[in-house]
């Protein structure tokens, strides 16, 4: 599989230089959010706001009033936990065209509780006027910049940084989910980094005789409930959601709401963080420890179907070549 180095850095720069109303804002995490090169090459389009996120969000609201479309770069957690009041009053309510670029979603950081955005989808999708997107591969990271900037209002994006696999050939489109497999036994719904895990699991599940239908979400809000329900209705056993997030308020909740409102009686297994914080550690370790990886998905499918597959860790396809991990710099802070 192709690994792409720092896709966001290139995509943002090539887009922003063509759109002078786009501003690059940062709160002391400029290189950590891959916009250090942009800062150095385009200082007139860059604003350093320091470690002061409350001011940054309201300031961005003011820039929106002046006709600019600021892109705010920080770790996801810092864009909504401390400055939630400012997010509501200065950005979401007045529908400012502010683009919140949240890096290190979920357990993609070893930084522990303070750095891990594990409830951001839940928080963001509850906010009126907000659009919520998530990139799942290099192509989506590249295309999310222009797509987010088309939104007539505020948008929050979960962004992947560093070395990112390329899974898709077509760009991310708001409101369009990807149907990655059209099996008939179980519907699997994933987004972000869990899609790669599901790709690993699918091969093994197929060999074990489980026919998987697989949806990849890149738009959490607006959520296409109708389409999810149609896919859920077409499988025999039910649905498994796997998310790099708490199961409360995220994809698991969205699917549950969709099924309930449609009156579709299908079992649902929600995989992700189960009402718990995570701690600091490597991404593979955290995904294994908290049950967010391919093996956890296999076990979730077994729980749903009531049939053991016999699949072990060794059976899982290595969609992502392990050697790639070793040459990638550890997720630095």
């Amino acid at each position, binding site marked *: 599989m192709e690994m792409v180095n720092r896709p966001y850095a290139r995509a943002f720069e090539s887009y922003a230089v063509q759109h002078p109303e786009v501003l690059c804002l940062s709160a002391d995490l400029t290189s950590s959010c891959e916009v250090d090169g942009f800062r150095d090459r385009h200082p007139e389009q860059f*604003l*350093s*706001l*320091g470690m*002061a996120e*409350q*001011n940054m*969000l*309201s*300031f*961005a*609201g*003011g*820039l*929106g*009033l*002046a*006709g*600019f479309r600021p892109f705010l770069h920080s770790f996801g957690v810092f864009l909504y936990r401390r400055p939630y*009041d*400012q997010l509501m*009053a*200065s950005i979401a*309510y*007045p*529908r400012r065209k502010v683009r919140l670029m949240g890096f290190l979603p979920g357990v993609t950081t070893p930084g522990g509780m303070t750095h891990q955005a594990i409830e951001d989808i839940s928080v963001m999708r509850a906010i*009126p*006027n907000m659009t919520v997107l998530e990139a799942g591969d290099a192509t989506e990271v590249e295309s999310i910049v222009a797509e987010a900037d088309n939104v*007539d*209002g505020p948008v929050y994006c979960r962004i992947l940084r560093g070395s990112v696999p390329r899974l898709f050939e077509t760009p991310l489109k708001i409101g369009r989910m990807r149907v990655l497999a059209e099996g008939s036994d179980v519907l699997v719904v994933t987004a972000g980094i869990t899609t790669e895990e599901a790709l690993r699991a699918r091969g093994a599940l197929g060999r074990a005789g489980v026919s998987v239908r697989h949806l990849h979400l890149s738009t959490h809000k607006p959520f296409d409930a109708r389409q999810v329900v149609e896919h859920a209705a077409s499988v025999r056993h039910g649905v498994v959601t796997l998310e790099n997030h708490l199961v409360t308020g995220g994809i698991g909740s969205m699917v549950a709401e969709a099924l309930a409102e449609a009156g579709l009686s299908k079992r649902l297994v929600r995989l992700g963080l189960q009402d718990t914080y995570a701690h600091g550690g490597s991404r593979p370790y955290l995904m294994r420890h908290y049950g967010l990886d391919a093996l956890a998905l296999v076990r979730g499918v077994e729980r749903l179907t009531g049939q053991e597959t016999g699949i072990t860790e060794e059976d899982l396809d290595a969609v992502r070549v392990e050697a790639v991990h070793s040459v990638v710099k550890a997720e630095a802070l």
Partner: protein
Amino acid sequence: MRNEKATEDIAGAIRRRVFEHSIRNNGGYLSQACSAAEQFAFLYNEALNLGPSTRPMVPPPFSGVPSASNPDYVTGAGYNGPFAPEYDRLFIAPAHYALVAYACLIEVGRMAPEGLEQFNRDGSSVEMIGAEHSPGMEVHNGTLGIGLSTAAGLAWGRKWKGEAGKVCVFMSDGEVQEGQTWEAVQAAAFHRIDNLWAIMDVNRQQCDGAMDSVMEVGDIAAKLRQFGAVVAEVDAHDVGALREAAATPHEGRPLIVLAHSSPTQGMEFLRRRFPRLHYVRFKSDEERREMNEAIAAELGVAPVNMGVH
């Protein structure tokens, strides 16, 4: 529209109108009119370069919040005139001063007196805590401390575009207890945002009572200067002094005028309520009658006829 009346006269009229409204409605933000009447009158009558109002004299009812399905949504900013590069913009950061702001809009001819009849009525846009859609408001500021940051962002953008108009914030001293205020000042200084200025009503009062009993804030002027602002300190009730302070040069920095005010200016009878002045409610008909007569005498008007609503 500007300068037809003396600013001092407008200030007096704001106090009278807020007083009459509060007596009729069994309470109101009386103290804010005492401390800030000259500041509002000064801003609207002299300091700000505003075009004529673009909105109806009687504010239309609440017409929904901003959403993709509400394309006709407008803010209350049109009462301050159209958005144009040469015109100033005003943010009223403590939205609790809305009654004073509405009274001022009436006195400067931007709103009809009947507009105030809708104050705090269900379905009205003339809300008790000024909202985005309330007359004279452009953004929500009911959560205290966000006004200066928003203004700094707008001012940076206007400067970048070469617009001549400035951005002004009416602030309250209680807001210096919020950390965001200091983040905003340091950012405005760091980015040399000097088309931004503020006038702060330093009345030393907040919701729980006197600020020193709630949270001491020390020397506000010294702190603001340390954070990079240019500061001018004046008697809030001296219009000439406000005029001079607003003209303080502040190249490369934001200007903050500290307007030291009395929370009972013009209505000394309210001293009896000290230090609970944030929202004055009457505890009995007797007290209401007493206050009606005493304050009317201070303001040089007849007591409010309680039979007329």
